C-alpha cells in the first residue's frame, strides 16, 4: 500500500465512523447528509482501488468482471436503499442523473481538460461506436415504458412491462460484457498496474469498504428528506444532480487523470461503461430488487428527465462518431449538463 492510499483509506473510514456517530447522536439531518456524502464519495474511490488490487491477483478477465460489477456499487446500493426508504422518485431520478453525469459531466470534463493540454485526441472508433449505440439502446429501453405510461395508466400492466424491459436490458448488458471480453480489438486491457497489495489485504479491504458503503449509504439515504426540508433543495435536483454526483466523484478523478495523460480511450471507456452499466444493469437491478422489497418500481420516468437523457445520448453519440475529440466538444457536453442542472434547480 502506498502512503497516499493508507492516508485516504484512514480518512474515509474515519469519516464513515463520524457519519454513523452523528446519526446516533441525533444531530440535524443535513449535517449527517454532508458528512455521509463525503464519506460515500471517498468510499467509492476506495472501492475502486480495492477492486483493482483484488483483480490484479485474480487475472485480467476476473479483474475486468470485478470492475464491471463493483464499479458502480455505491450508486446501486444508494438506489436500492432509496427504493427501500420509499424515495422512489429520487431513486428514479438518480438513474437518469447518473447517466447524465457520466456522459455529460465526466466525459465533458475529461475531454475539455485533456483536449486543452493535448490538442486533438483520437480514440478507437469501434469501441466508441459499440458503447454509444449501447447507450442509445439503454435510453430507448428506459423510454418505452414511460411512453407507455403516458398512454395507459393501468399500473399492473405497467409493472409487468417494466419487468420484461428490465429483463431485456439485463440480458443485453450481459451480452455486452461477453462481447467486450471475447471480441479482439474491442477489449481494451486495463492499465497493468503493479500488484502492491497482498491478496488477503485486497480482499479484506474490498469487503470492509463494501460493507462501509452499505452502512454509510443507508445514513445518506435517510438524511435526504431532512436535508430537503432544511435547505429547500428541489427534490428533482437532489435526485438528478446531487445523489449521482456523490457516487460519481471517484470516476471524475480517474477519467480526468486519464484524459490528462492523453489516454482518452480509457477516459471514454470509464464514462460510457459507467453510463451503460447504470442504464442497463442498475435499472434492471432496481426493478427486480424493488419486487423483493415489496415496493415495486416501474421504469417510468419524468418525461423532462427522459428528454434530457435523450439529448445527452444524442450529443455524446455525435462525439463518439467523430473518432477524435477536442476541448470544444468537452465544453459542449458541459454546457448541456449545466443547462439541465439549472433547469431542474428552477423546476
Amino acid at each position, binding site marked *: 500500500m502506498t502512503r497516499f492510499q493508507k492516508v485516504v483509506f484512514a480518512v474515509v473510514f474515519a469519516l464513515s465512523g463520524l457519519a454513523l456517530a452523528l446519526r446516533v447522536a441525533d444531530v440535524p439531518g443535513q449535517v449527517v447528509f454532508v458528512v455521509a456524502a463525503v464519506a460515500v464519495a471517498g468510499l467509492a474511490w476506495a472501492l475502486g482501488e480495492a477492486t483493482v488490487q483484488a483483480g490484479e491477483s485474480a487475472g485480467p478477465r476476473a479483474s475486468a468482471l470485478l470492475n464491471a460489477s463493483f464499479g458502480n456499487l455505491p450508486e446501486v446500493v444508494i438506489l436500492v436503499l432509496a427504493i427501500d426508504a420509499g424515495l422512489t422518485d429520487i431513486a428514479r431520478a438518480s438513474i437518469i442523473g447518473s447517466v447524465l453525469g457520466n456522459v455529460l459531466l465526466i466525459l465533458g470534463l475529461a475531454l475539455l481538460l485533456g483536449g486543452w493540454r493535448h490538442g486533438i485526441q483520437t480514440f478507437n472508433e469501434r469501441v466508441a461506436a459499440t458503447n454509444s449505440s449501447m447507450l442509445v439502446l439503454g435510453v430507448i429501453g428506459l423510454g*418505452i415504458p414511460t*411512453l407507455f405510461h403516458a398512454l*395507459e395508466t393501468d399500473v399492473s400492466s405497467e409493472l*409487468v412491462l417494466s419487468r420484461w*424491459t428490465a429483463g*431485456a436490458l439485463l440480458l443485453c448488458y450481459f*451480452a455486452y460484457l461477453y462481447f467486450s471480453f471475447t471480441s479482439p480489438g474491442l477489449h481494451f486491457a486495463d492499465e497493468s498496474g503493479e500488484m502492491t497489495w497482498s491478496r488477503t489485504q485486497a480482499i479484506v479491504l474490498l469487503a470492509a469498504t463494501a460493507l462501509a458503503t452499505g452502512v454509510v449509504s443507508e445514513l445518506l439515504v435517510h438524511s435526504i428528506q431532512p436535508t430537503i426540508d432544511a435547505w429547500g433543495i428541489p427534490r428533482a435536483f437532489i435526485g438528478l444532480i446531487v445523489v449521482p454526483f456523490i457516487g460519481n466523484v471517484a470516476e471524475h478523478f480517474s477519467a480526468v487523470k486519464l484524459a490528462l495523460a492523453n489516454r482518452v480511450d480509457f477516459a471514454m471507456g470509464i464514462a460510457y461503461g459507467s453510463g451503460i452499466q447504470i442504464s442497463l444493469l442498475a435499472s434492471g437491478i432496481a426493478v427486480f430488487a424493488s419486487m423483493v422489497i415489496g415496493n415495486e418500481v416501474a421504469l417510468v420516468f419524468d418525461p423532462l428527465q427522459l428528454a434530457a437523457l435523450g439529448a445527452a445520448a444524442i450529443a455524446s453519440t455525435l462525439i463518439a462518431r467523430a473518432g477524435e475529440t477536442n476541448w470544444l466538444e468537452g465544453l459542449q457536453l458541459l454546457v448541456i449538463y449545466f443547462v439541465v442542472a439549472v433547469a431542474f434547480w428552477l423546476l
Partner: protein
Amino acid sequence: MPGLGSLPAVTRSLNRFEVISVAVAAAGAAAAAALALVGAANTLVFLVSALALVALAWIVGVATEQLGESAGPKVGGVLNATFGNAAELIITIFAIRAGEIDVAKASITGSILGNTLLVLGLSFVIGGLRNGIQTFNQQVAGMNASMLALAVIGLGIPTLFERVGGHADVQAISDVTAGILLLLYVLMLVYYFRTPAGGSKLREDHPQPHWSARLAMVLLLASTGAVAVISDVFVGTLSQVIADLGISAVFLGLIIVPLVGNIAENIVGIKIALQNDIDFSMLVSLGSSMQIALGVAPMLVFISLATPHSFDLVFPAIQVIALVAAVFITALIAADGESNWLEGAQLVAVYAIIATAVWYL
C-alpha cells in the same frame, strides 16, 4: 463485390423447395377458402389463412425474381419494387376495405419496425456469430438510412399536425405528403437505376433464370390473385380474433400481420447474412422498409379513396415514436460500415421491448 458468388447457390438450392412451396401454398389457399365457406371455427380459419398467405407471399417473391431475371435487370428492378411487398399491400387494402383502419395503420409501422429491427437484427446476430465482424458498403447503407429517416419524417408530420394544430386539415396534409413520398420513391428508383454503385445493382450479374418467363408470369398472376382472395378471408377473421383471443387490434396489426406478409422475405435476408453477404441482406431489410414507407403507405392513402373508409397518414403517437427510435438506432449502427452480433442483439432488444409494450397496451 463480396458474396455475389453465393447468389446462384441461393437460387438453385430453392429449386426442389419451390415445387413443395407452390404445392403447400395452393393446398393452404384451398383449405383456407374451403374452411371459410363451410364456416369453420374462426380461429382455425385465421391460422390456416395466415399460413396460406405466408406461402403465397413467398411464391409472389420467387416468381417476381424469376420473371425479373428473364426480363433483364432494369425491368427486374421495377418488378421487384412493385411486387416486392405486393402481399402486404393487398392484405392492407383488404383491411382498409373491411374498416380495420387501426390494424392497417399498425401493419404499416409494424412492417417497418419488423424489417429494420427484427430482420436486420437477426441477420446481424446470426451472420455475426458465424462470420465475426461483417463489413458492408457504408455509402449505400448510409443512403438507405437517411432515406428511411426521411420516410419516417414524412409519416410523422401529419401525425404531429393532427396532435398540435387543432384545426389543421389532416386529410389534405396526408394527401399532399403521400404524393410527395410517392414522387420520392420514383426518384429513388431512378437514382438506383442510373447509379452504377446503387443498391439494386448488387444483383446485376444474375444466374440464368431457371423458370421460363411464361411460367413465372403465370405463377406471379396466380399467386397474386390467390393472395387477394385469401387476404379477404384473413381480414374477415380479424375482428373475431380480437374478440376471441383477447389480442388487441394494435398488436395484431403491428406484430402479426407484418409477420404474415413478410416472413418469407425475412428468412431470405437472414440466410443471406449467414452467407456473409451483409450488403445484400441489408438491402433486403432496409429496402423493404423503404418500399413500405415511401411506396405502400402513400399508395394506400390514394387507394382508400375507392373504399368507403379513408386512410390518412395520422398514426398513433406511440407508433411514430417507436419508428423514430428504430430508425435512429439503425442509422447509428449502419453509419460505421460494419456489424457484429452485439449490434444485432441491440436491434432485436428494441423490437422485443416495443412488442412487449404494445402487447400490454
